[in-house]
């Protein structure tokens, strides 16, 4: 091999290595943008909203219930107290299990503050809150109702549901990008966030659970965006 051919081959090898390195690292970080699964999920949702799947849920009032999609669209069946012509609201969704003593309690607190904000600023026609329990086996309507009472949930604003079976649950968790793992002490650990669903039933934003104000802002934007 001549000297120049050697140099050319070396340059090809080096370029290929650099290219492969960039491709691999871009893959892992979603284009050098994120380091964590949660951040990647939030970014994807922001770019391309995801339709919430139609799954059956049971509410804290005990009614075995239409599908969540209808719930987010506020079908007349769900808002029986309201006339059918009510304009659908944006929904802020969180995931909890009622036996949880750590992050779910904090989420409950965040939702309580959000509820107060919605009431004080008169936004109840635009935004509502939805708590989904992923503890299908334990969280019956009574547990949900208790959780609602503890957090002083106003049923006009804040509803609580649990999917009717594990397949419905799995579908929901996948769509919302929530991963639930056992904590080794009989409970669970899960990534907690505030999920904003627009009046069309599309997941449009995921924000940090501590940032209720951002979630409310995003929900109002989503509501405004719908004619």
């Amino acid at each position, binding site marked *: 091999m001549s000297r120049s051919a050697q140099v050319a081959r070396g340059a090809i*090898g080096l370029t290929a290595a650099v290219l492969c390195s960039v491709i691999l690292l871009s893959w892992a970080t979603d284009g050098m943008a994120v380091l964590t699964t949660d951040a990647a999920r939030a970014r994807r949702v922001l770019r391309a909203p995801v339709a919430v799947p139609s799954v059956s849920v049971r509410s804290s009032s005990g009614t075995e219930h239409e599908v969540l999609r209808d719930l987010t669209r506020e079908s007349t069946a769900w808002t029986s107290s309201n006339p059918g012509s009510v304009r659908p609201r944006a929904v802020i969704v969180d995931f909890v299990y009622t036996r949880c003593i750590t992050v779910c309690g904090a989420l409950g607190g965040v939702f309580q503050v959000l509820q107060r904000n919605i009431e004080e600023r008169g936004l109840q026609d635009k935004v509502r809150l939805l708590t989904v329990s992923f503890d299908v086996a334990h969280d019956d309507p009574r547990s949900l109702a208790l959780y609602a009472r503890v957090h002083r949930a106003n049923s006009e604003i804040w509803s609580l549901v649990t999917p009717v079976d594990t397949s419905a649950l799995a579908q929901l968790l996948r769509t919302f990008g929530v991963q639930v793992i056992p904590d080794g002490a009989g409970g669970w650990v899960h990534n907690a966030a505030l999920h904003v669903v627009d009046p069309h039933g599309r997941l449009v934003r995921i924000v940090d659970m501590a940032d209720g104000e951002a979630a409310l802002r995003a929900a109002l934007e989503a509501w405004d965006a719908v004619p």
Partner: protein
Amino acid sequence: MSIRRCTGFAVALLLSLTPARDLIVATMTGHMLVQIPLLLLSGFLISEPAPVYVRSTGLNPGGAPGLLLTAAIITMWMVPRALDLAATSDTIAHFESGTLLAGGVMLRHSWRRAGAIGQAFFVGNLTWMAAVAGLLLRDAPVRVCTTYLVRDQLYAGTGLLLLATAIGVRWVTTWLALPSARTNPAVSSRMVNSSNGKRLRRIVHGRTQPLIASASADVSGERLINLRVTRGRVLGE
């Protein structure tokens, strides 16, 4: 096939295709400090140093492309999102095994050719990064992986910090020991192994001198790179 190679293949198979994998990656510590390093190591064991069929292509000058890509692969599997993906998807898990084995093979192919400077650059960068990653994991206020518990994250961070420190210290002490090999008669065979061809010539003043001298008479300068000293015998590969 040598014992070294058999071990490499056995570990690689065990870690990529058996239930042992699921057990190990069930914890973040197992994933970051057992699964990933062992896969790299098995790739390293499977291959041979700077084989002629790789050198003759001229695509890996001075081992730089190989070390660069290996560093990128190691870095990639320190990203929490990549760990999550590998822990939850079989396809990605196989991708992980494949890239890490390839990384180990490339490391072996490139290591001696890289020379002291290249090696120092590689080890310095990676240990520094791993140590920082370990510190960040220890200090992170939230879980960074959706698959792993926060307690596990603390262990993994501590382990990563310790591992990086150990490798760094080991590297520096080897580095410091090399020049003194001229006056120190007790040059270990290990040290000869871990050095590249050029340095091999320089440390012949130790006990190994006659062995190397007699062997180097038989091989040309290029072949000297592959000299190994094992228990007082000189082997040309």
